[in-house]
């Protein structure tokens, strides 16, 4: 192509040398980090599925827990599945409404008030408290007075979930643009209206998925339950009184047994727990997508 005399062609290629090397090093580094991160994750899932999948059946999920010496073909872990669902569900019923309201208070009503800053600070601190401390706390204030029960376990799990729900709700509300609030106020809405009809709906997908992630985390907790529900092998339908059981405590107990049947039940329970967490994640994704249908 003819170029006017005196005009030089511009060099638009990537500058060679050090800059290109840095780019390559960083790219390779990120790939290595990605693979290293995937190895333990993949290994955990592979091991649990290979050792637990054979145990899973409808009978396994519903039948009573047999004595430890019996092989996995006898009985199942029904009481533990029941306990996990009921205790976690009860904890969610307590923690989610309270946590969502707390998050709304901090972001929408608290402003710079001392109370809001205190709640925010303690929610931060509580997310870092080890779960066994929560178990001990409930043991001291509840179990010592009223005895072991599924409800005591639910209280401990609720204490674990509460700060997570507060923080995730707060973070979701914080990113709702002020222009939406102003638009609602300018139509004559009261503060409660603005919060209920504009701010919370705009953030609901994130709030729901945050809450479900907290539930998934609580469902797998063991330490807070050991102190609060004791551990039993029989089905206890009354969550408010008497020892109870859960998948996580069953794994903890059976994994140390010498009997292959008990060990197989522990692997099966582990897979069941992962499946519960997985289902909750998928529900969280679906809910987020459902609520986000007007985002674009």
């Amino acid at each position: 192509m003819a170029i006017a005399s005196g005009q030089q062609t511009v060099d638009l290629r990537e500058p060679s040398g050090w800059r290109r090397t840095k780019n390559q090093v960083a790219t390779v580094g990120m790939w290595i980090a990605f693979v290293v991160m995937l190895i333990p994750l993949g290994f955990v899932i592979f091991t649990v599925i290979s050792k637990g999948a054979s145990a899973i059946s409808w009978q396994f999920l519903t039948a009573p827990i047999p004595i430890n010496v019996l092989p996995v073909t006898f009985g199942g872990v029904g009481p533990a599945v029941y306990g996990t669902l009921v205790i976690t569900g009860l904890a969610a019923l307590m923690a989610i409404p309270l946590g969502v309201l707390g998050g709304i208070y901090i972001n929408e009503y608290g402003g710079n008030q001392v109370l809001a800053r205190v709640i925010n600070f303690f929610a931060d601190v509580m997310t870092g408290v080890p779960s066994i401390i929560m178990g001990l706390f409930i043991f001291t204030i509840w179990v010592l007075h009223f005895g072991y029960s599924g409800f005591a376990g639910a209280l401990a799990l609720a204490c674990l979930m509460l700060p997570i729900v507060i923080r995730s709700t707060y973070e979701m509300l914080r990113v709702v643009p002020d222009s939406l609030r102003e638009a609602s106020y300018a139509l004559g809405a009261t503060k409660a209206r603005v919060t209920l009809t504009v701010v919370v709906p705009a953030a609901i997908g994130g709030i729901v998925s945050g809450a479900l992630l907290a539930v998934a985390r609580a469902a797998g907790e063991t330490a807070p339950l050991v102190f609060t529900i004791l551990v039993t092998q029989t089905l206890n339908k009354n969550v408010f009184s008497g020892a109870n059981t859960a998948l996580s405590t069953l794994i903890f107990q059976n994994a140390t047994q010498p009997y292959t049947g008990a060990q197989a039940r522990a692997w099966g329970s582990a897979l069941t727990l992962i499946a519960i967490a997985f289902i909750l994640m998928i529900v969280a994704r679906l809910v987020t997508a459902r609520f986000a249908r007007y985002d674009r």
Partner: protein
Amino acid sequence: MEQQDQQVTAKLQVPQTTATPAETPAEAEKVFDAKSLSCYYGSFRAVTDVSLSIYQNEITAFIGPSGCGKTTVLRTLNRLNDLIPSARVEGDVHYRGASLYHKDVSPTAVRRRIGMVFQKPNPFPKSIYENVAYGPRINGIRKKSHLDEIVERSLRQAALWDEVKDRLNKSGLGLSGGQAQRLCIARTLAVEPDVVLMDEPCSALDPIATGRIEDLMHEIKSQYTIVIVTHNMQQATRVSDRTAFFSVLRNEKPGGNDTRTGVLVEYGTTQQIFEDPHDSRTQAYVTGRIG
């Protein structure tokens, strides 16, 4: 209309004595009457000593350089600045005879009569229908047929109906900038406000979308009173009946650290402000020599 006026008086809790009867035609048309209005953000005085009257079924434009406080004054007219914790007001603004900043006045009741369209189009993340129906709903209208009627009427008024009538259930966020701004205007009109405040409504729009919104303003002027803040002087001359020119006053007092404040320099008919400005600062601004 008479009934509506009674409602205004009732809901704003105006003491009977301040509702002065109309004596001259000019008095009767007054919608806002600001007297020595000063607005503060904390200790910073953003606007000082503004006095002006805004008249019914007119378009009043606020023009001036950035930081002169025209948006602040606009936001005091429907008490939207109440949302900023540090904001406060001195002096007084009367709206149809009622003092806007009287302690018994509910900002919510004020904003139901005085709507606002913002600089950046801000539709709710809801469907187009729900965006327009939002205002009527919070005012207690539940009947579907009534809401349908309001939505269609408001979207027609905002010249958007033909473009969106087949996708009322689609997200309001999927509209183009100009359409989104017209949706916001429709949302404001849906509550049948008395006054529409517009804060640079066309600054994010191209000339064609701007032209449509200006046409729309002319069309709805017979039913509403409009106050518009604009940086575009051609827009002020095209749409407004009256123009208020604000400017920044720098106080050269030694020792004071922040002595910048917005002032109302000149207020008159748009023709007078642009063709025969009395103040040299106005003249410099409208002829493009400053700002």
